[in-house]
């Protein structure tokens, strides 16, 4: 369909903007797909009150569809801010975000079962839904075959194969979304295709009725909302407007626990997974030959206790060397340019306050900052390369052990590394850490890392104070960096042991194959 045809189809209702939420697991290629569908004209902000990034952009072409990127989550049960925000938006309960007209689900075809867990929770909320099965190329590489038509009929939603980085399937996604938004007649509420035990079903019906009654969710999403409520921790906080609902859910959970002797959340998860496994077995033709892929072998080295750390040290060494060696000539040019500008000012402006202000204040001051621009650019280029190659996930994995010793998360590694260029983007990158205590600790210690603006100070001091050879100077410089890192770790340890003490937490890092170009970007 051409853009003009699409525009013509939308002509009668062109004033209306359709909102489509994009949801999926972390690292399922959602961001790549979002970028391919929107062409990088994003509006980025925060959801009110929480550090959860909110990204919005229009669908490519002349489309009245506005895409809203939801945070990457594994489940819709609200246990973290990311999940709570996603659930609120999909139920139309978010303060400043309208309920979406449709949902685009992104699923990683190579980990279909886990991705369908979230997908099925969202489908049950009754919004028109389109499922984009992403990473179809990797699935094919592994020798598996997926019957998309069967998957579509089992789930009751259109399924579209996509390959995010190559932009494949984007037109089909757009057409499906437009069709989903334009269908005036709402399809009858779908029956949930899997069932719980009789007593649990009875409780779900009761909660669903209460949910409808209280206006917590509409008729179409009541069943799905009731399932989510039952799988959550039902303790209502002070001033929770839904306290009566939470109380009813809590009573239902207690009743079921007494009756079945088993946590209802377990039954919900187990029954849903049993159903999903049956679907995946039905639709996915697995290759018999379980070949040990090249990725596995590379992974074995990169995450090895000794070789992995060696590789890591080499990569980091190359990165720092690259940053300094490549940036030096560029910095030289910039400094020359600044010098030229200062000479021009000296020649053109008569001596006095104005000349001093311009030459020694504005040009010298701004120039001192601009001179670091090449270093920061090159560092970010390297970070982007590391992320897109999938190495960053391995590095975070390797670092998790060290980081957890000082009470940080593996994900703190990227913010702390970025802080070597500049603490500000480093602090920005800390938003990807889910646990607020870990996030705050990372933010507090990030400025202790030696940022590139300290580099000339170090250079100057070393040159002035230590009459040494080049190698020894480099060694002292290395020690300065090391000192910053050690101090940061000590402070983190102390903070986590005192002010920011918290219960032990789970860490699950998700590894995508190395070399896949579809790693979700997690630095700011």
């Amino acid at each position, binding site marked *: 369909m051409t853009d003009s045809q699409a525009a013509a189809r939308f002509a009668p209702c062109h004033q209306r903007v359709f909102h489509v939420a994009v949801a999926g697991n972390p690292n399922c290629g959602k961001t790549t797909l979002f970028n391919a569908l929107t062409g990088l004209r994003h509006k980025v902000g925060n959801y009110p009150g929480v550090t959860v990034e909110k990204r919005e952009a229009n669908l490519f072409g002349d489309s009245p569809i506005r895409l809203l990127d939801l945070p990457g989550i594994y489940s819709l049960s609200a*246990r973290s801010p990311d999940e709570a925000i996603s659930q609120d938006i999909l139920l139309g309960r978010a303060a400043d975000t309208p309920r979406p007209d449709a949902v685009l689900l992104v699923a990683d075809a190579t980990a279909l079962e886990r991705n369908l867990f979230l997908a099925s929770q969202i489908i049950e909320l009754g919004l028109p839904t389109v499922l984009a099965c992403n990473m179809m190329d990797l699935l094919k590489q592994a020798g598996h075959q997926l019957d998309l038509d069967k998957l579509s009929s089992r789930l009751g939603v259109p399924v579209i194969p996509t390959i995010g980085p190559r932009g494949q399937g984007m037109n089909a996604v757009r057409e499906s979304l437009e069709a989903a938004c334009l269908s005036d007649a709402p399809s009858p509420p779908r029956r949930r295709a899997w069932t719980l035990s009789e007593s649990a079903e009875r409780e779900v019906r009761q909660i669903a009725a209460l949910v409808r009654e209280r206006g917590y969710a509409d008729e179409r999403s009541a069943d799905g909302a009731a399932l989510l409520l039952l799988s959550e921790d039902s303790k209502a906080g002070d001033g929770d407007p839904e306290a009566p609902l939470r109380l009813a859910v809590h009573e239902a959970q207690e009743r079921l626990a007494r009756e079945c002797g088993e946590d209802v959340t377990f039954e919900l998860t187990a029954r849903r997974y049993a159903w999903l496994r049956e679907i995946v077995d039905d639709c996915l033709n697995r290759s018999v030959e379980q070949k040990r892929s090249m990725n596995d072998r590379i992974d074995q080295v990169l995450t090895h206790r000794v070789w992995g750390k060696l590789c890591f040290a080499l990569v980091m060494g190359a990165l720092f060397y690259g940053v300094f060696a490549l940036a030096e000539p560029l910095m030289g040019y910039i400094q020359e340019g600044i010098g030229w500008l200062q000479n021009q000012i000296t020649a053109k402006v008569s001596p006095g306050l104005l000349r001093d202000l311009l030459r020694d204040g504005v040009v010298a001051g701004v120039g001192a900052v601009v001179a670091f621009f090449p270093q920061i650019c090159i560092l970010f280029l390297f970070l982007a390369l590391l992320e897109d190659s999938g190495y960053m996930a391995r590095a975070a994995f390797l670092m998790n052990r060290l980081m957890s010793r000082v009470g940080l998360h*593996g994900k703190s590694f990227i913010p702390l590394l970025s802080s070597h260029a500049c603490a500000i983007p480093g602090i920005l990158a800390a938003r990807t850490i889910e646990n607020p205590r870990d996030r705050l600790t990372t933010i507090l210690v990030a400025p202790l890392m030696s940022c590139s603006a300290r580099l000339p100070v170090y250079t100057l001091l070393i040159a002035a104070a230590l009459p040494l050879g080049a190698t020894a100077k480099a060694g002292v410089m290395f020690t300065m960096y090391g000192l910053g890192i050690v101090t940061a770790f000590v402070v983190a340890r102390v903070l986590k042991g005192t002010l920011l003490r918290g219960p032990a937490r789970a860490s699950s*890092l998700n590894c995508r194959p190395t070399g896949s170009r579809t790693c979700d970007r997690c630095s700011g």
Partner: protein
Amino acid sequence: MRMGCLPLASAQLGQDLRIRSVKTYEACHTQRLRELGLLEGRTVRLLSNHDPMICQVGECRFGLCRRIANGVLVEPLAPLHSRIA
């Protein structure tokens, strides 16, 4: 603990293991693990037993810190003859 059950953290590499129970210190982690697919009755395989450990359930791989992995009890699927030796 049932006979033959052991924490995932001390299981053998590369062996197919059935998950018998998932009970971590905090209830929310238990539920999180189950939602990720580490669910009672499923088959899991350990790919690396450093900290964090890597395990595979179905087509999905996870990195899991040892403390959490200790809350997952598993039993070997096929009795290993080599073990007796």
